[in-house]
């Protein structure tokens, strides 16, 4: 039976040792504080695990995805992000993903798994019909559907007979690569990538686990400016 004095001394010593050993982790965490997101347009990588927390669990922060990315669209939480520190993301405002799939092949963990291009779910494009040039009848643009790597399954141009402009309409096949955001000439970026779950339409799970969209997602009512559900 030890007396109180030795107990307190032993306890303090053990506490000090534990403190010293967790110091590196504390310092590392302080060096990567969680700050308010600079950009709202951060989207996950192609083939990333659907659940963001699972993705953080799986990513070891080796940076190999960024090192193989041909357009260098993959960025990292370099000195921010808290526990997301050193994990990758894509900012489509700066650079969109070209869906080459190299990052999925090179990732050593299950954070990025090889996925067929049409099954990738990085997000889905949404068009603000009150700002997009053709939608507000300010000329012919078509930058988004011309750059789209998936073509008419992802975004379609609908020609309007009244004024002969072709307005872009996002289709259910959009995987959210963000190339349309990158090239959109309108400064307020009426096209953006939103999370699939945040999209304005309901989805029904069908065979082979593919998402199937009941109707056209993410359109904003041109007359009222409200999101159509």
């Amino acid at each position, binding site marked *: 039976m030890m007396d109180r004095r030795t107990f307190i001394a032993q306890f303090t010593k053990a506490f000090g040792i534990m403190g010293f050993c967790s110091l590196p982790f504390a310092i590392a965490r302080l060096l990567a504080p969680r700050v308010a997101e600079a950009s709202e347009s951060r989207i996950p990588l192609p083939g990333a695990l659907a659940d963001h927390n699972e993705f953080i669990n*799986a990513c070891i922060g*080796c940076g190999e995805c960024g090192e193989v990315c041909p*357009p260098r669209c993959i960025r990292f939480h370099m000195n921010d992000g808290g526990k997301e520190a050193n994990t990758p993301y894509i900012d489509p405002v700066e650079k969109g993903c070209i869906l080459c799939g190299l990052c999925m092949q090179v990732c050593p963990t299950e954070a990025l798994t090889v996925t067929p291009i049409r099954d990738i779910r990085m997000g889905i494009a949404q068009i603000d019909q009150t700002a997009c040039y053709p939608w507000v009848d300010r000329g012919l643009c078509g930058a988004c559907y011309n750059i789209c790597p998936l073509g008419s399954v992802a975004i379609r141009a609908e020609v309007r007979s009244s004024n002969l402009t072709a307005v872009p309409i996002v289709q259910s096949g959009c995987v959210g690569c963000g190339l349309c955001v990158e090239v959109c000439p309108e400064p307020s970026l009426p096209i953006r990538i939103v999370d699939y779950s945040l999209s304005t339409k309901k989805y029904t799970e069908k065979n082979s686990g593919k998402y199937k969209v009941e109707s056209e997602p993410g359109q904003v009512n041109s007359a009222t400016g409200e999101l159509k559900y």
Partner: protein
Amino acid sequence: MHRTWQRHLNKLRWLMLSLVFGTLILLPFFHLYQTYLASHSYDLLLPKEKLVYDSMESLTAPFLSDPEKQLEAVKGTTWSGTWFGLKLSDPLAVISQASAGMKLYWPFILTAAIPLLFTVIFGRFFCGWICPATFAYELNDKLGMWLRQAGLPISQRRMDRRLKYLVLGIGAVLSAATGAVLFAAVYPPAIIGREIYYAVAVGGFGGGTVFFLLTLLFDLMVSRRGFCRYVCPGGALYALLGRYRVFRIQRNVATCNDCAKCNVACQFGLDPLRDGFGQECNNCTACIAVCPTDALRFELKAKDAVNQGPGHLGQLYRKQQQTSEKAEVQKI
């Protein structure tokens, strides 16, 4: 006297460390070069980008016919990388990822199989021969030596070697609790590879650079090679895995002359003079290189010899002393 070839291993080790460090610096530039090649737009590059393009072209053109594809062969860092189609990962990455996600993902675990096998055979060889942080830490140690010679009062505190095992354990528990791969942020080889890539290809250093500079200061001010010896969780893991390694440096008593140069050369503060290697030895071979009588060399042995006592000169001295004492006793 015929001298052992093993004293040249230290030079080979420095060559290896420089190669790894140089490769880590070159890889981001190769990546930039590949992206410039992929974009087919040399004329649109900025002058400094053109400089990168030209220098990388002159580096690779004699060896590679299709650099855009062939440079894919070596990618990543020592934390996790691809090496001619072979995916290799640090065993610590596997441990931290498994504890963060609380599940096993076999394709990833298998990438650590080859490093694991080598560690079981050679012990902490990664620390001494590959780790890009060791390159910086050993140079830092030289700097510390100069500073001491210049008269700066630099502390050489000794701590408990077992602290790093606690760091490993606490890190695994914290990873499981927070669900993030925390070791990636405190493990210097992972930090260095990543930060070089950030600095060259992404632009600007991340928080890891500050952490690494802090560890350099810790080594310089508090304890010689203190981070590797007392804190590094990777070193702890390798020491545990290499406890029963097959290749180990051993002392030959018959040729040892007790000069104690090995104890001074050992940056890890081990005691080769008294056969005190243990699991901490990182096979850096500095003691072999410095030994004037080649008493230290690698041997195939699963266990360290226990203290074999003084070397041949010491034994001779003792014998002479004993005989002279006997003679004196006989005289009396």
